[in-house]
């Protein structure tokens, strides 16, 4: 556990610096209120009203997030395998190639169905 203590110290320092500077930033500097200043910026025209929750956005982003989860899990599997690769030799290789091929099938399927298209 001793290995993780310095990380906590750095987190406290970095986070502390961020918090202190954010607070200091709001204390310093002049403040003059006007109605237009608190409107959101839309290139100088009157802002369009936003629905609660930030409005709608393309579903593509959800798909990207889900694909990311699939591939990230694959990578998480690959990391310990790579570290212990020399001890497992050919057995590990064959197992992992099978795993990668399985993921590749899913990848090819997503590609074929247009999941990776952006236009």
């Amino acid at each position, binding site marked *: 556990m001793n290995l993780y203590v310095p990380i906590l110290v750095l987190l406290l320092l970095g986070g502390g610096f961020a918090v202190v500077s954010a607070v200091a930033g709001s*204390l*310093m*500097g*002049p*403040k*003059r209120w*006007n*109605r*237009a*200043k608190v*409107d959101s*910026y839309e*290139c*100088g*025209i*009157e802002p369009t009203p936003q629905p609660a929750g930030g409005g709608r956005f393309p579903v593509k982003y959800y798909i990207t997030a889900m694909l990311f989860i699939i591939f990230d899990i694959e990578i998480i599997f690959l990391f310990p395998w790579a570290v212990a690769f020399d001890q497992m030799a050919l057995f590990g290789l064959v197992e992992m190639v099978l795993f990668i091929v399985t993921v590749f099938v899913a990848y090819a399927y997503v590609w074929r169905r247009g999941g990776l298209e952006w236009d």
Partner: protein
Amino acid sequence: MGIEEKLPAGVLLTTVEGVVGYFRKASVWPATFGLACCAIEMMTTGGPVYDTGRFGMEVFRASPRQADLMIVAGRVSQKMAPVLRQIYDQMPEPKWVLSMGVCASSGGMFNNYAIVQGVDHVVPVDIYLPGCPPRPEMLLDAILKLHHKIQTSKLGVHKEQELEEQELTALESASTSEMKGLLR
């Protein structure tokens, strides 16, 4: 009002004024905002020959939230005026306006119903720059004069005193109708 403006008058405030003025003048970020032909000269001023980057002014920020200086480069049409005002209002304090070119300063040759006759009808202007369009050297000169203005600007109590004095001078000076001879 920020902390730096609440200091009591004295050596401390004068020092802070100097330091703050220096850092503010050393980093004046203009808003990306070009209206007409003057904007071409403004872009040239940022280019290799004139290079406002020497003064740390090559950072043209697209969002007014991070900009300090609005260079009104070109004539302001009546339709553009509210947009210009909105962007000016959305810039955080302290902010400055440079009216570039004769059209922005007074309407210039566009003496007609479509053009605002001087951008000071819409926003407070800190420095006027004549020319149609002004050459980049003239814009650089205006920017340097603005830097001087930023450097010598007052804070807090000093600012209030300065405003009071300006008010007094304005009250005591003869009004335009009472002036005699050539007005110059």
